[in-house]
Structure formats: C-alpha cells, structure tokens
C-alpha cells in the first residue's frame, strides 16, 4: 500500500515568471494559479471541463485548467489571461476587438474566448463564421448569445491580417 503524498516540487513559468514551489497534489491547475499564485483572472465555472472559464495555455496549447492537476504541469510554460496581452502595456488586437465589438458582458468567460480566438487565428487567418463558432464551442457564455463574440473574432481576424500584411510589406 502506498502512502499518500504531501506536497511535491513544481517548477513552472507562468506569464514569463518562473515559480519553484511545493504544491499539494490535490490541487487542480486552476486552483494552483488562483490560490497559490493569486492569478485570479482565470475563473472557475464548473470543474467539469464544460464552461471554459478556466482556460489557459500550457506549453502553447489551449487547455481547461480545471482538468489537470497542478503537479502535472511541472516543467511547463503557462499563460493566463493576465499574460494575454504580452509584454507591452497595450491590449492585443484580440482584446481590443472584444472591447470594441461588445464581445463580453459579465466577463467571466473571457479566458476561454480570448485564448480560443488566439489559437484559431494562429491556424486560420480568415475564418468563416462557422469556423469561429466551432473554435469557441468549448466555452459557454450566458450573456451575449455569442453574437458580439463572433463579431469580435471577425474584427480581430481582420486586424491581425492587416497587421501581418504590414509586417510583410516592411
């Protein structure tokens, strides 16, 4: 019979900051981020992987952080909504689009919506409405009826394309 463990060492980089900490193996990744690192921008809506409010990226992949143990993330690089804009002070084009196009009301679903949009636009610069809806289907929003969100993603896609064209022409 094995003995239950107390804390285990975890070494992660979150939003560019390295953390070497001891973590209770019972903690889901979302609880580690929220409680231990006090990054409360990642939200909890269901703990069953259905709502998407706890979305972060782990090693560049978009995941629901209620579905992993924090100790599983040892050695990973994580981004949360607090690190979404990146290093500069400015909001990213995706964030600006969500603001300008009324892509949220209560804001609780934003982590999933923002990260899934980023992933979509990384793979498909000119998504159709159906592509956009498919890309955000892992997230529940109860406020907007998704209308403003789809418009936000469309606007973000256009902005990203313009941005990329500029970069190419430079």
């Amino acid at each position, binding site marked *: 019979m094995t003995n239950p463990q107390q804390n285990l060492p975890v070494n992660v980089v979150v939003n560019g900051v390295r953390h070497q900490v001891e973590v209770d*193996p019972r903690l889901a990744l979302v609880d580690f981020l929220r409680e231990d690192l006090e990054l409360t921008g990642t939200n909890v809506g269901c703990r069953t992987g259905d709502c998407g409010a706890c979305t972060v990226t782990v090693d560049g992949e*978009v995941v629901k952080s209620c579905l992993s143990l924090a100790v599983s993330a040892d050695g990973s690089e994580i981004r949360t909504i607090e690190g979404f804009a990146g290093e500069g002070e400015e909001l990213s084009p995706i964030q600006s689009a969500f603001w300008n196009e009324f892509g949220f009301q209560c804001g609780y679903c934003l982590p999933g919506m923002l990260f*899934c949009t980023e992933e979509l636009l990384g793979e498909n610069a000119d998504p159709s409405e159906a592509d956009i809806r498919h890309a955000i289907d892992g997230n529940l929003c109860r406020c907007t009826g998704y209308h403003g969100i789809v418009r936000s993603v469309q606007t973000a896609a256009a902005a990203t394309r313009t941005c990329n064209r500029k970069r190419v022409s430079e």
Partner: protein
Amino acid sequence: MIAHRFKYSCPRSAEEAAAELAQMEGEETAIISGGTWVVPEMSHHLRRPKLVIDLKLAGLAGVSAEADAVVIGPATTYTQLAHSKHTPNFLKKVVAGITGGSQIRNRGTIGGSACYANPASDIPGALVTMKASLHLRAHSSTRIVEAADFFLDANVTLLEPDEILESISIPSTNDENLFSYAKFKTAQGSWPIVTIGCIASEDGVARRVIVGGAGAIPFAVDLDGQESEDEVLQRVHAAMRQPWSDVFATADTRRHIAGVMTQRAVREIAAAKNGEKS
C-alpha cells in the same frame, strides 16, 4: 475540489505503470492520460483513488506506421491525431468533431476515452469500426484484444484493475476505402445520441456499419449491400442489444435515430461511390 489524499506517480513506461498497479492489491487507482475524466470525477468526489498514475512521462503518445497497421499510443491527444500524417482518414474525421472545444481536443486522449467506455463517446464506436486491437499490459503479462470484444457494458471494459492500455493498432488495409462518419447530437455541447461509422469494403459497398451511442456498447450491423432502406432499418433494430437511455433520449428514440442514421450512412457511401464513377 479534490478533497482526498492520494499518491501521485509519473512512471516512465507502461511497464513501470503496470508494476505500480500490481502493488495496489485491489485498492482504487486512477490513470491520468489527458485528465479530462479523472480530474473532474475526483474534484466532485465521485472517485477516490489511492494511487494516481500520470502517463505524461510514460512515452505513450504518438502515431506510427508499421507494415500493416497504424500504432497509436493511448496517451495521444485528439489534436495530435488530427495532425499526424499516419492517422487513418476515418479517425481524423472522428477526432475533428470531438465535443468540448479545442481545449478538450488538446488534452483528451484516444486511450482515455477507450478505457472510460462512455456509451456516448465517439471513440468506442470508432475503434470497433476500424477493427482496432488493443494491447493491454499487466506487470507480468500482456494480451491483445479486439475492440469489438473490449467493450462489455456502459463504462465497463475487459481492462483488469492491474492492467494498462499500452497501444492501439489499427489495420491499415482499408484506409483508402470510402467511409462515412456521422453523429447525432441534441446540441453542440451534448454527447452524441448516436454515432455511425462505416468503412466500405474495397468495392465501395457499405457492408458493415458500427452504431455507437445507441446502446451501452457499440454494435455492428452487417449488410450485403442489396438491402432496401426498410431492410437496413430492420437490420439495425435487430442488431441492437444492451439498450441505453440517458437524459437526452430514451432507448426507443436512440433505436429509431440509429436506424435513420444508418440509412443515411449507406446512402452517403453509395452517393460517394457513384460520384467517383462519374
């Protein structure tokens, strides 16, 4: 939140994992492949394993092509399957439509879904459709079982408590054949009520349809390609065993929809075949 304490372990191979399972002597264990089932069930106190084995370092993810089969590691995520050049075309179509969004496709694994054996998941039916075989490893033995034999009942498989799914092999013989895959859901966020998988024989005829979701385990409908639409329906209804119902649909509704969807799958294959000819 997860309230009970447990031992957490990251074995370096399936063999190491099996060795750890062997020591548990009937105590509850859980294997985390993607975590999409185990972690929420622990969070809601529906499972209280004493040992949690995390496969992330066990080298069980990946798709490789062998002489007559494609071999898939059980910890391969749906996204990895979608991106691998070796993944059979049929399976690519299945994983593209997995419910739960990209977050789930990035984490959920083929082996995890197979072992969970949820009647309403895509994977059990898909494995049976592809005539996959599953390689199971215990500490001191291995065995190979056919997907069609692996699933016993809703959430029940042949896997023994001391066994781990080590790999899945899919015969590569049929990969160029016509196929169809369709699923029927109440809404985008819901589990399928019915999945229909069909890989046509080399002559382009739908002779075998696998119905998932409609019963507790996937079942095959064998056809000779000469049936009328009504006969297809009767075959489906006759083939259905271990009826299943949940909050979305009763067993009768599932049976009805399975028949309709099978007719459509056969039609789709026939249309594709005719399209090829013209």
